[in-house]
């Protein structure tokens, strides 16, 4: 049933799927400590939250014309705990804390991305300057 090219195609597809990972991976420094969450609505920046120095739990709602999401910041991680979207995928995705990780609520065009602060991360790498 399987033919030889099937395996070649499957391996090629797997390699292909890592291309975006490579492109973004090179531009991210995952070991750095200055993390912040950037929340965008409809592609426009809405709010940034410092995660590295955050302790305890904090909740706030975001309301748009599409619906609402309740965002929770738990120590240095961030997640969506309630939303009125039909699929609830953003809640199932859980909490995120590493740079490059994403939370998306497509029906509300809301996106949370963990970014790292280049200025604080750079200090450890190039101390000579």
């Amino acid at each position, binding site marked *: *049933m*399987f*033919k*030889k*090219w*099937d395996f070649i*195609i*499957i391996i090629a*597809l*797997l390699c*292909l*799927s*890592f*291309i*975006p*990972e490579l492109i*973004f991976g090179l531009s991210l420094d995952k070991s750095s400590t200055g993390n912040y969450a950037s929340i*965008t609505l*409809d*592609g426009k920046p809405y709010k940034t939250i410092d995660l590295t120095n955050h302790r305890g739990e904090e909740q706030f709602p975001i309301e748009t014309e599409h619906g609402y999401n309740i965002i929770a910041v738990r120590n240095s991680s961030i997640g969506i705990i309630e939303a009125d979207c039909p*699929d609830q*995928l*953003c809640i*199932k*995705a859980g909490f995120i804390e590493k740079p*490059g990780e*994403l939370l*998306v609520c*497509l*029906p509300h*065009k*809301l*996106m949370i*991305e963990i970014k790292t602060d280049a200025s604080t991360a750079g200090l450890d790498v190039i101390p000579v300057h």
Partner: protein
Amino acid sequence: MNKTFRLVFISLLAAQALLLYGIESLIPLPFIAPGAKLGLANLITVIALYTLPSKKDVLGVLFLRLLLSALFFGGLSAFIYSVAGAALSFLSMIAVKEFGRDKVSIIGVSAAGAVFHHIGQLLVASAIVENTALMLYLPLLSAAGIGTGIFIGIAANFAVRHLEKLPVFRNLSAQ
């Protein structure tokens, strides 16, 4: 294959695909990544690709299913994702099928279709939130897509093998 048979067969396939699409939404799945799904409707697209004589007819089956599923289940936003996914998936399946000829089986074709379906959907989703970082979900989705694609391919293999026994499809390769 006369004209009436062709039309009826296209409609039948579209109806089956629509039903599979509906059943799929009733099956609970563990959460892997946003957008990951079984892709049962792709089973019909693959079968159509191997049984219908012209690519235009396969496109007809696909488009009918997309349109009807948007009317019955999804709505407009789901339709946009589906169209992008289906278009890329259709093109990639034809490319693999034509390029591989007899060296590639239905399994390879269906796995390619599944992966490119996800690529199409991610591209649209990236355009909607205006951030290309969404493409980072691709490895997860591809792995899930290849998994389901292999099973869809195996199922399609059985179906096509039995369909070929019908007198109507006997001289398929000649057409």
